[in-house]
């Protein structure tokens, strides 16, 4: 029962997964290429941070699928083309409006759709709002966690496509947090990462490598 982060070694992955500004909730950090030979327990959860180079995940898609087929959990953050390496992901990108907040009183319209879900603990509209990269068409039976202003899914939980669980989002907090850009992304990670750990590997002891870490 472990929470495993997949690092592509980019500066923003290093800063997010190892830096002191985000909760360090990981039992292990591995490069994508280590996945096929990793000894994974079905109770393990694999976290794939945003803006991971998709070609490196496409190459290990069979290992991710095998983990899901054994009942495992995979969490795929945005801007990594998860539609290319996870089953059943239907993604529609959108042009990114990063200047929407320049208008006084502007609201991007992103909302937590399932506030009672343990993954959304501590998250409010402000903590999920920086900008958008696109939406998903989740399969029937999936639970939408976050929606945009058009009521389209930007984060969802799919426990129906495989025997495992997939959390899929188009939000890209790790990149911006790791770039010291957009404080909402730091607030998002401060709430989401502990919530993820509690939900994904509930009952597991806290990681021993970084016991002091909390946002």
């Amino acid at each position, binding site marked *: 029962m472990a929470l495993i982060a997949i*690092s*592509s*070694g*980019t*500066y*923003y992955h*290093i*800063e997010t997964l190892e830096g002191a500004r985000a909760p360090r909730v990981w039992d292990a950090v591995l*490069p994508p290429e280590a996945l096929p030979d990793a000894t994974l327990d079905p109770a393990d959860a694999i976290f794939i941070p945003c*803006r991971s*180079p*998709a*070609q490196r995940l496409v190459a290990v898609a069979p290992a991710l699928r095998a983990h899901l087929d054994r009942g495992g959990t995979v969490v795929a953050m945005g801007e990594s*083309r998860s539609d290319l390496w996870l089953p059943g992901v239907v993604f529609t990108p959108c042009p990114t409006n*990063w*200047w929407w907040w*320049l208008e006084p009183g502007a609201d991007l319209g992103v909302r937590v759709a399932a506030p009672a879900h343990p993954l959304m603990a501590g998250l409010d509209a402000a903590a999920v709002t920086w900008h958008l990269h696109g939406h998903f068409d989740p399969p029937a039976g999936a639970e939408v966690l976050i929606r945009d202003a058009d009521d389209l899914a930007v984060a969802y939980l799919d426990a129906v496509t495989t025997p495992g669980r997939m959390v899929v989002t188009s939000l890209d907090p790790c990149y911006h947090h790791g*770039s*010291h*850009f957009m404080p909402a992304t730091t607030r998002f990670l401060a709430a989401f990462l502990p919530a993820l750990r509690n939900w994904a590997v509930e009952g597991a002891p806290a990681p021993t490598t970084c016991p002091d870490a909390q946002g």
Partner: protein
Amino acid sequence: MKAAGVIWVRSAFAEPSETVRAAVDEGRATILVEAEVSPEALRAHCGLITGTQLDQDRALVWAGWLRAWLEAGGRWVVNGHLLRPILPEAAPFVPMERPGRADFVQTRLAEHPILAGIAPELLEANRGVAGFYGRGHNPMPPGAVAVTGLGPRRVPVDWVWPVGAGAVFSHAGNDLWGAGREHGLGPELTARCIAWAGGEGAWR
């Protein structure tokens, strides 16, 4: 150094730009992934260009021989925040503390072939939003020259460092060729990086 052409390290999923592909077609650039950047590959080229998605864990193995290649005349254009000690003198990245808009005003502190003639204000903002260009600096090694300063404190977001017969140009922000997009500067900045890393012009 008899080597020619630059290594363009492809870290990202996106295809390299048309400018890069044209350089490849003309024999002025070779596209490799991090693991293919060996001492032999470096010796066969006079320049190295890395982007913000560089796998710094993989690139850390370069540390053992990158310095010798630079001293022999190699030039490296490095984009992004250096966190691993690939060049120990230039890491880790130092972020600005709570920067505001004034902290993103750019000042050209020294001329450099990569940025010569490009007004700093053209690189400052994108659709009215500043901060993409850089939000801090990679530490300047002794002997490095600041090229672009940010804000009143002139935070050296760009610098160039002579290393023996070679040099490093550090841009501690999003990929340099992504700046000035509104003004169509991307291809020009890409071409200038390839030209400079390829040995054209002085180190500064």
